[in-house]
C-alpha cells in the first residue's frame, strides 16, 4: 500500500474539487467514506462559488484544513475557463495546507461512480471486478463532446480505460469510439462529475498504489489565437 508524502498511514482525509462541468467539492475519508459533498450545477459561475463550496464542505465534514492528507483535483476534460478554477483552487489549497495535490481524471470519476453503481455499490464501498463497457460523454461546448471508453472495473474496483479522452462532434461519436461504439453512453447533457466519486477514487488509487493523472489540465483543444481587444471600457 502506498503512502502519501508526509501523510500518516492511519489518516487519509481528502478534499476533492472538480469544476469540469459544474462546481463540486467533497470531503472523503478512506475508511469513513463521504463526509460531505457540496455542488452547484451552474456551468458559468465557478469563480463565484468555489470558495463557498470548499468552506461548506469542510464545515459539514467537521474537518479542519490541518486534518487533510491531500487535495484531489479533477483535471478534466472540461471547458477551460471553469476547469482551471477548480484546479488552481486545489493546487492553492494544497499549498496553503501543506499537503500534496493529486490529479484525477474527471471522466475517471464518472466511470468509477457509474460502474460502481452497476456493480451494486456506493463509491465509498471497496469494490471488485465488473465487466461492463461504458462510454463517458460530457459537454465540451462549441458543438463538441468529450468522450472516453471504459472496459469496466478491475479486481480492485477501479475503472479500466480503453480509449480517450478525446473531443469529437456528437455526430462523429460512433466512428471515434470504434470498438466501443456499441457500449452504453452517458448523456452529455445530464452527466455530472461527482466530487465524492473523484475523492473516493483518489483514496482507492492511493490505497492500491496506482498512478495518479498528470497534473496538467486535459484541455484537449488549442487556444484560440485571436489577441484580446482589451477589457471593455468601464461603464460609468
Amino acid at each position, binding site marked *: 500500500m502506498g503512502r502519501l508524502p508526509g501523510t500518516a498511514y492511519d489518516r487519509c482525509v481528502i478534499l476533492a474539487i472538480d469544476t469540469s462541468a459544474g462546481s463540486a467539492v467533497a470531503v472523503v475519508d478512506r475508511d469513513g467514506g463521504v463526509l460531505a459533498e457540496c455542488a452547484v450545477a451552474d456551468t458559468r*459561475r*465557478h*469563480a*463565484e*462559488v*468555489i*470558495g*463557498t463550496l*470548499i*468552506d461548506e464542505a*469542510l464545515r459539514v465534514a467537521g474537518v479542519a*484544513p490541518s486534518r487533510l492528507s491531500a487535495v484531489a483535483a479533477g483535471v478534466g476534460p472540461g471547458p*477551460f*475557463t471553469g476547469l*482551471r*478554477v*477548480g*484546479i*488552481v*483552487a*486545489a*493546487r*492553492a*489549497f*494544497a*499549498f*496553503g*495546507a501543506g499537503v500534496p495535490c493529486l490529479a484525477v481524471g474527471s471522466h475517471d470519476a464518472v466511470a468509477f461512480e457509474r460502474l460502481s453503481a452497476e456493480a451494486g455499490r456506493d463509491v465509498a464501498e471497496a469494490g471488485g471486478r465488473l465487466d461492463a463497457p461504458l462510454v463517458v460523454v460530457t459537454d465540451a461546448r462549441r458543438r463538441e463532446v468529450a468522450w472516453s471508453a471504459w472496459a469496466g472495473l478491475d479486481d480492485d474496483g477501479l475503472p479500466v480505460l480503453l480509449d480517450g479522452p478525446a473531443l469529437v462532434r456528437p455526430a462523429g461519436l460512433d466512428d471515434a469510439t470504434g470498438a466501443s461504439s456499441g457500449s452504453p453512453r452517458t448523456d452529455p447533457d445530464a452527466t455530472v462529475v461527482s466530487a465524492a466519486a473523484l475523492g473516493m477514487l483518489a483514496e482507492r488509487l492511493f490505497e492500491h498504489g496506482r498512478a495518479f493523472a498528470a497534473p*496538467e*489540465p486535459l*484541455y484537449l483543444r488549442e*487556444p*484560440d*489565437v*485571436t*489577441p*484580446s*481587444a*482589451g*477589457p*471593455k*471600457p*468601464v*461603464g*460609468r
Partner: protein
Amino acid sequence: MTATTASPAPSGGPAPASARGDAGPLVLGIETSCDETGVGIVRGTTLLANVISSSMDEHARYGGVVPEVAARAHLEAMEPALRAALAEADVTLDQLDAIAVTSGPGLAGALMVGVGAAKALALATGTPLYAVNHLVGHVGADVLREDGSDLELPTIALLVSGGHTSLLHVRDLVDDVELLGETIDDAAGEAFDKVARLLGLPYPGGPQIDRVAAGGDPAAIRFPRGLTLPKDLVRHRYDFSFSGLKTAVARWVERRRDEGLEVPVADVAASFREAVADVLLTKALAACADRGVPRLLLGGGVVANARVRALAAERCAAAGVELRVPPLSLCTDNGAMIAALGAQLVARGHAPSPLDFGADSTLPVTVVQAV
C-alpha cells in the same frame, strides 16, 4: 514563460519596517488580470517581495495578448510564484494578516485563476481575503515609497498599459476614487503594439517604438490627437481614443509605400510616440488644473516609455504639479500593488470581502474592494 524577480528596491533594499515606524499588516497580493502572474508581499507600506511571471513571450507571435494563452500560463505559474514570493519575503503563510486579489477589471478567464487561487489559499490558511480593484491597485503601488514619504492625496492618476488607459481623481485610496476618463477604443499600449507591427517591429511594441524613436524627429509628421477638438472636449474631456491615430499612421505609411518612397521609420515612430504622449499628458494636466489638484501619479507599463516620462516631467514642472512615478517594477502589473492596497484596507479596518465575489472584467474604479 519567463519568471523574473523584480528587485524590491534598486537602491539597497527596502527600509526595515522598524525604521519606518509603521510595521503594518503583512499582506500577500495576487494579480492575474492580464498576462503577468504577480505575487507580492508587503508589510504595511514596506515592500517585501514582488515576483512576476510573464507569459509575454508566448503572445509575441500573435502580436497581442491571447486571453486563453494568458489564463493557461497563470494556472501553471501560480504555485511557483507563491513559493518564490514567500521565500523572497522570508515569511510563512501562517504569518500573513490578509490575502488580497485582483477581482477586476481585466480579462475574465485570467482574473478567474487568481480569484480561485486566492479563495482556496485564504480558506486553507484561515486568512482574511480582500478582493480589490486592479486600477486602484496601480495607485496603491505609490504607498510603497522607498523614501518613506506618505502617499499625498488628492492626486490625479494616469494609468496606461496594454490593457487600460484611465484617468482617475483619487481623493482617498480606499473609498473615494473617481473615474474621470478612459479610452473609448484601444488602450494606448495596444496602439504601440499595432503601430510597431505596421513598422515591422516585434511585439511588445512599446519598447521597440521607444528604441527607434530615439533617432527620429517627433515633429516630422503631425499625427492627430484623438478627442482633443473643442467639439469632442464637450463630451470626452478626459477620455482617450487611439484608433484614429493608429489608422492615420497606417494611412501615412501606406501612402508613402505606394509612392515608392522609403518609410522613415524613426520619424514615424517618434511622431507617433509624441502624439500619444502629448494627448495623455494634455488631458492629465487639464484634470489637475480643472480639479485644482497639484499632483499627478503615473502607473502602468507605458511608464517605461522614455518620452512619456520626459514629457510628464516637463509639463508638470511648467504647471507646478508634483509628478510621482513609482519604480517600473511597481508600474507594470504586479502583485505587490494589490498587496499594498489590501494592506491599506486592513489598516483602515475594512472587513474582508465575502467568499462569493467573482471575477468582474468591467469592475468600475468606484468599487475599490468587492464587498
